[in-house]
């Protein structure tokens, strides 16, 4: 039907074009010029990231897919360092890669060493090319070499170098600005550096004439890498230059404003306005930073509203980083600590401040939800992390969901680094929802959509879910199973959470599970017990570091789980370990000598053995229980064995004798 309509349309169109063809001239539109990546961009935007797979960087052999934050970092860095090593090899020994007859010849596959500042010709051209490649320290070395060899450097080149060294404080480009190595960019840590006094920047500043530009660059550099003395110097320079009727640039003003108190900052912006210099978003960010120094909440609030009002009045759109500064510093930092809020008054103040912060955040979210978000400053992406932190503190799930939808919307071009800040963001959101919601189904859906792709499996999250499961009146096998499986991959099984796993598994009502679920339960228990036993058997010298001996409580719980899935034989083999002295002594020990079997687990095992009329099982349980119980407690148990099981007189005599020999 549709095909016929379609065909009809085509024919009709052809006819009409033939009829009107005589009157109208057919024009072929010229092809639209597309850049080489436009097609790929369009495809990428349509397809987006695969939400059913791990991050693209980890798509590889499934066994290597990392699930915790640490494993993600290790994997990513290992990959990146591998690439860097390969590139270094290709640079160092290009002849080993001489089979290069590709046409066209692609220089990207033939990495070159950077020019050595001690080897290159000491010319301005070499210096400029090093400056161009942002090799700050190399440029400094070459400049100093040229000076020592009395090679003249023109003022223009000196100015270029001065810009570079002032912006980067005579040090190499920080990790945060490494373009091609994402791992180092996000995981690398630079010390917060202070102004390198007496460095090449200072030398160049003395050499170059004191123009508006050079003084502004110097002040900006001193403010960017500020400590007490560099700030003093910057202010001094500003005063001197103003006295000499000079005028400094906006960036220098921004630096000075950001490191002053709000009252001084106000004076500075008045001077800016008097000199007819227009502000930009960085100026207002500096002003907001200055406002954060006000100790009183009311003063800060007033300052923030005034600054935002000013931005609105002159039509400068606040960046996300502007909101970040406000959100981060609005509530008194002293009140954030539970312990420090030791009286009612402080609690009330905290609540009041938090309410204002949440209300403002709501206003901000309303405002940004309609606009396209682009990165303006380096700290723009921190807004989302800070906002979710605030909403977590305020336990406001509704606003958190709104924040999340803005972050994930297509109009948002500001993304947090995936495995560091973004992971914290999602983790906070997930924890907030888990805390606030009562529905295990909702938790399950959210958990499976976020862990481990966005949020690494972590102990806090797992224990939160275990706690939620135990407080909930419902049971949710898929959620429990998923958390335990994630826990296995994240190496949680040998710690406190391993105990939690056993507890939760023994709490599961097997009869309430479906057939396939029961199979899942069985295989999960088998897997866990097998792993625990295997880890306990790492008794060889080189493996002992990884060994986790079985504790008696663990053995009793495992045995209980095994009987639940019908593996009585294995369970009693395990329980035998508790009675085998050699198992806990010497280098080959697999059982921890301290601790006791869990009484509740043993009681259930005992009951189970009685139900099965298993004299051997019941006797083993009795023997294990005798390690912690006295004769009075054991006698009724022995009597129950006689009642339930088919005990012959000799066996009866042995058991009675055994119980009699126990201490009172």
């Amino acid at each position: 039907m549709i095909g016929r309509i379609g065909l009809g349309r085509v024919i009709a169109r052809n006819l009409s074009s033939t009829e009107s063809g005589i009157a109208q001239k057919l024009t072929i539109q010229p092809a639209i010029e597309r850049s080489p990546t436009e097609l790929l961009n369009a495809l990428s935007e349509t397809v987006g990231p695969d939400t059913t797979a791990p991050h693209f960087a980890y798509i590889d052999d499934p066994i290597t897919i990392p699930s915790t934050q640490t494993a993600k970092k290790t994997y990513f860095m290992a990959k990146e360092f591998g690439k860097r090593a390969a590139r270094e090899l290709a640079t160092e020994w290009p002849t080993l890669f001489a089979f290069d007859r590709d046409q066209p010849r692609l220089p990207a596959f033939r990495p070159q060493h950077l020019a050595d500042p001690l080897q290159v010709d000491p010319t301005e051209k070499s210096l400029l090319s090093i400056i161009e490649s942002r090799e700050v320290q190399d440029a400094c070395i070459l400049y100093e070499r040229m000076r020592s060899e009395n090679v003249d450097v023109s003022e223009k080149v000196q100015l270029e170098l001065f810009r570079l060294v002032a912006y980067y404080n005579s040090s190499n480009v920080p990790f945060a600005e490494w373009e091609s190595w994402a791992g180092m960019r996000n995981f690398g840590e630079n010390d917060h550096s202070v102004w390198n006094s007496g460095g090449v920047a200072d030398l160049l500043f003395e050499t170059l004439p004191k123009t508006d530009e050079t003084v502004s660059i110097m002040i900006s550099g001193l403010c960017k890498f500020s400590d007490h003395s560099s700030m003093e110097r910057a202010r001094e320079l500003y005063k001197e230059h103003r006295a000499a009727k000079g005028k400094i640039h906006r960036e220098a003003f921004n630096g000075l404003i950001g490191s002053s108190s709000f009252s001084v900052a106000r004076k500075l912006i008045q001077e800016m306005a008097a000199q007819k210099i227009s502000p930009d978003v960085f100026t207002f960010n500096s002003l907001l930073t200055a406002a954060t120094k006000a100790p009183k909440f009311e003063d800060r609030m007033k300052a923030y509203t005034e600054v935002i009002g000013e931005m609105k009045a002159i039509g400068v759109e606040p960046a996300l980083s502007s909101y970040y500064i406000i959100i981060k510093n609005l509530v008194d930092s002293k009140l954030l600590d539970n312990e420090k809020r030791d009286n009612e008054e402080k609690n009330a103040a905290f609540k009041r401040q938090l309410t204002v912060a949440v209300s403002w955040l709501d206003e901000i979210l309303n405002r940004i939800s309609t606009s396209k978000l682009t990165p303006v400053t380096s700290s723009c992406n921190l807004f989302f992390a800070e906002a979710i932190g605030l909403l977590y503190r305020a336990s406001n799930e509704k606003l958190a969901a709104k924040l999340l939808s803005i972050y994930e919307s297509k109009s948002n071009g500001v993304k947090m680094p995936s495995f560091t800040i973004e992971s914290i963001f999602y983790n906070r959101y997930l924890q907030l929802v888990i805390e606030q919601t009562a529905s295990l189904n909702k938790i399950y859906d959210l958990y499976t959509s976020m862990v481990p792709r966005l949020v690494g499996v972590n102990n806090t999250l797992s224990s939160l879910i275990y706690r939620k499961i135990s407080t909930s009146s419902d049971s949710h096998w898929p959620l429990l199973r998923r958390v335990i499986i994630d826990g296995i991959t994240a190496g949680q099984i040998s710690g406190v959470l391993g105990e939690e796993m056993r507890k939760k598994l023994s709490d599961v009502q097997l009869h309430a599970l479906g057939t396939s679920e029961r199979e899942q339960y069985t295989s999960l228990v088998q897997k866990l017990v097998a792993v625990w036993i295997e880890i306990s058997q790492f008794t060889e010298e080189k493996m002992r570091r990884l060994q986790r001996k079985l504790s008696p409580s663990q053995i009793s719980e495992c045995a209980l789980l095994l009987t639940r899935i019908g593996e009585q034989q294995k369970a009693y083999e395990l329980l035998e370990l508790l009675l085998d002295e050699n198992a806990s002594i010497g280098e080959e020990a697999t059982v921890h000598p301290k601790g006791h079997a869990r009484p509740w687990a043993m009681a259930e095992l005992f009951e189970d053995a009685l139900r099965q009329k298993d004299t051997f099982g019941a006797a083993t349980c009795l023997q294990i229980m005798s390690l912690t119980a006295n004769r009075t407690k054991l006698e009724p148990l022995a009597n129950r064995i006689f009642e339930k099981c088919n005990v012959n007189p000799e066996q009866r005599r042995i058991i009675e004798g055994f119980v009699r020999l126990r201490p009172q």
Partner: protein
Amino acid sequence: MLRNLCSVAVRLGSRRQQQLLSSTTSGGDDEGKRPKPKDVIDEDLLKAIDGVANNIHPQNGTEKKSLKNTLINRLVANEKASFDAASASASSEILDDQALIGLLADVAGDAKVERKIPPKSAQLRQEKRGLVLLRKEIFYQAVQSGFTTEEARVKSETIVNDAQQKLIEQRKALLNDVREKAEQEETEQTERSEKEQKLFATALEFMEKIYKDDIINSDARKPVLVDNDAVKLFQQRPLGVWKKNENYEDFSLGFWNKWDQRAAVIANGSFGPTNSFEEQIEWTSKGKQWEYPIDNEFKMGDEANVSFIDHVFLERHLPSLGIPKTGPIAHFMHLVCVGLSKNPYMTAAKKREHLKWFADYFNTEKQKLVHKLHEQEQIAAQNAL
């Protein structure tokens, strides 16, 4: 079955003796045979025990003493069992004795089990025992994290005390239903260095385990909602420094702003491509992949500016080169042009050079010679008929 029972009975007998022995030891009757606490427990730990005792019973001297004795007895037993080897060779690997962690877990487990029969003193003892072990654990972990022994000792005490304080506060907070984990994290982060923070977290985790009984699963915290009457952020008076109608100069350093922008874009780059198209975009921009749309003219160099006309239509050059329009040479040159026009490996300039060479070769003398030879051939052919 009987065999089993008998074997059980034999084992039971031997176990019983051991039980009796151990019970006498723990009863503390046999003081003389036991090693002195100082021989077994290191000084740090003894100090730590002092600290605990002081903390718990600052006034009551007898209680302090009895607590100290209990702790020391416990620790001596523990040391005997599992830490002899560890203290003998003080290598860091042995220091990280997993047995201790297992023991801690057990202690914690015991503490939990004993909830059902809660004699207050026993519970208190369990907690104290846990604390001492915890101090030791933190001490070892601190040593492993690179602190010196002295630092580690101080750290272990302060951290465990802090954690204890924190937990007491936390329990209070829980009872009041105002527990806020996020806040703790925030303040802790500012107060402690990363290393210390890690140790603190471990301490708190163990503490929570030890005091687990008291941690009540509080209901969800009450949300702080938006207050519509609160001061609005966007509807306040401006500073009034810059006026909208006045003209201001964009007096900027330029490069500074541009580099800040560059840093902002890089900082926003996350962890590289998130799907294979983004990866291809990255390869394209780095010059590792042929650009779309794919054709065979990618990076052709100078030839990219040469039209196919110059490559294919070569006969138009012949008249200017003085090649005759008819005859065998013309015919031959026509074939040369066809051959060259089909050659994709030769530049247009090279092709023209070829033609020029042929033109030079077929100079007037050669033309005459060829003409003569051609005529002779034709005559010979006619005669042959």
